[in-house]
């Protein structure tokens, strides 16, 4: 059963206050645990310590060791535990501290969680949520900085969400937990302390529904995760130069709301896709392909992709800064798309 209740954000009786991304995640998780007794959390240092990123602060106090489980460093067993428990009707939330660690448990995610419903002829569901911290920008180097959404979005049976601010961190987490499929929630490490308005009550954000974060007529910028904020900053800069860009936050990369993108592209005729992951084989490639397929006749320029170069994430801050796309590169890309002689 999937209940999706979008926040009545506009309603006056909803109390919204500024909350950090990590607190918003924590609040959504706690509310989802209150909502459904079958939700439990397992992971390394999630209970006693509250998570190395403070994602699970205070949850042990409220929910006790029955529902907050510290596990050994055994990611394959951790995800497998979630798969088995989900198959038996629970709604596990398992935490992979860093997204890079999916390398040691990929089988459970890709071959087990993702395919189980299908292989069982639909007889069961795997309402598993995997939370994990992704992204570069903290000098965490090659094995602690990756954005691997493209790996997962490629696997039928999985869903992948990428919260871009505190509001989506809460709403997408709640929807992920309520969803009857395995959903990977890719939190962004750099955004953990960022704040935005977050309603107090529980709310879900529909999976597979993109959000137009800013309207504009000149270029459509489709940005994933942290790049949404960068795109909005670029939009401010460009607006001062008379260029209005539209910023689309897909929020969910699997399923992907391409209709919103197509509609925007038909108006702007120019598209830039930006993500932190390496450009080659990234979501940008998929989005570009779909746009040329559905809206080819509306393009005035080839779809432009901005992503990381084809290299591991470098450690040295000078390299890392050059590696990760930012507002300047987005603005420059938009100008390039609009170039006329």
């Amino acid at each position: 059963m999937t209940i999706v209740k979008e926040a009545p954000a506009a309603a006056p009786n909803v109390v919204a206050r500024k909350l950090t991304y990590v607190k918003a995640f924590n609040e959504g998780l706690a509310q989802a645990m209150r909502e459904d007794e079958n939700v439990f959390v397992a992971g390394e240092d999630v209970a006693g310590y509250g998570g190395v990123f403070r994602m699970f602060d205070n949850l042990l106090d409220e929910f006790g060791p029955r529902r907050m489980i510290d596990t050994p460093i055994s990611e394959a067993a951790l995800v497998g535990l979630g798969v088995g428990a989900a198959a038996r009707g629970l709604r596990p939330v398992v935490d992979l501290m860093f997204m890079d660690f999916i390398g040691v448990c990929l089988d459970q995610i890709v071959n087990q969680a993702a395919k189980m419903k299908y292989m069982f002829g639909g007889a069961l569901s795997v309402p598993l949520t995997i939370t994990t911290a992704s992204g570069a920008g903290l000098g965490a180097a090659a094995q602690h900085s990756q954005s691997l959404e493209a790996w997962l979005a490629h696997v039928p049976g999985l869903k992948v969400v990428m919260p871009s601010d505190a509001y989506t961190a809460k709403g997408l987490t709640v929807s992920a937990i309520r969803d009857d499929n395995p959903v990977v929630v890719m939190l962004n490490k750099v955004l953990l302390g960022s704040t935005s308005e977050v309603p107090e009550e529980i709310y879900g954000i529909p999976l597979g529904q993109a959000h137009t974060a800013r309207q504009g007529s000149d270029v459509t910028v489709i940005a994933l995760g942290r790049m949404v904020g960068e795109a909005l900053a670029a939009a401010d800069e460009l607006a001062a130069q008379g260029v209005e860009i539209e910023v689309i936050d897909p929020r969910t990369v699997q399923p992907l709301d391409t209709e919103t993108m197509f509609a925007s592209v038909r108006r702007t005729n120019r598209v830039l896709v930006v993500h932190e992951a390496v450009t080659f084989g990234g979501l940008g490639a998929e989005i570009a392909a779909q746009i040329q397929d559905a809206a080819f006749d509306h393009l005035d320029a080839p779809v432009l992709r901005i992503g990381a170069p084809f290299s591991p994430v470098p450690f040295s801050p000078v390299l890392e800064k050059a590696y990760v796309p930012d507002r300047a590169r987005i603005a420059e890309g938009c100008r390039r798309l609009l170039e006329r002689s």
Partner: protein
Amino acid sequence: MAQRASKKSADPAANQESAQVVKDLHERMVRIRLFETEAGKLMEAGRLPGFLHLYVGQEAVAAGVMAALRDDDQITSTHRGHGHAVAKGVGLREMYAELYGRVTGACLGRGGSMHINDLTRGMLGANGIVGAGVPIAVGAAFAARYKGEDSVAVTFFGDGATNIGAFHEGANMAAILGLPVVFVCENNGYAEFTPQSGHMLLTDVADRAAAYGMPSVIVDGMDALAVHRAAADAVARARAGAGPMMIEAKTYRFYDHQGVKGLRHPYRSAEEVAEWKARDPIDLLEARAVADGTATRAELDDVWQRTRDEIAEAIAYAEASPLPDPADLLLNVYSG
């Protein structure tokens, strides 16, 4: 078939050790200690980017094992790898330069703390993925035997790492292939903030060796000489073709899991920390050396002073080193 060795505590007959070995161990430990305390200070001063898992308190393990190795013996390390690198002889300049993200660093500024390596010293790399170094050491040992060399491979890992599949698969693989690998578990009692009792039911990690038909030995990880003796045995055994063996060194980290001071959540009691600090591995060795006349206080102090100077010089070198050029972002992604 490897025999199951009964666990034995270290034999306290340390007086037999030559003064040479004691001085070697002392020097290696002091180097590690000063490297780490200075790195910790630099990090707290905001001068070093990224994560830092410091080795302070565990020096006896790296020193004891490395003193039993040749340059061509290979090691694989962990996220807490500075001590292993220093003890194996990786240059302090290159290490600090790496922590600073300079192009003169051990990874050309690309890797940072968790990826320091030096092939010329047989250091096959720290590792950001817990347990990942274990199978790599098995492969290094395989290569040595394949090429007809008599070098061995040593893999370091924590207590927490023995819960991950790579450890178990690597141990069984080394055992069944009879490879010259020494498994060194540095049991500091914690995996991040979880005590050993919270992540395994065993008291001794060494018991896990039995599951793979591998002999094991437990040593006091604060006693450099004890570690060294056990390592020398295991290395000799492996070099002789008798297969892998595991050493469990009971030790303790004086700093927090990451950085110097833990910011929150007292997961270790003050008494526990104090108890272990009272058994500081360097103090223990120095006390014994002075007591049995292996070294004078002045000689020992001289080591500290010389090392301090060397560390200061290495830091100055790192700070003066150039940053990598962003134009070289694609460097070394592929060979050829």
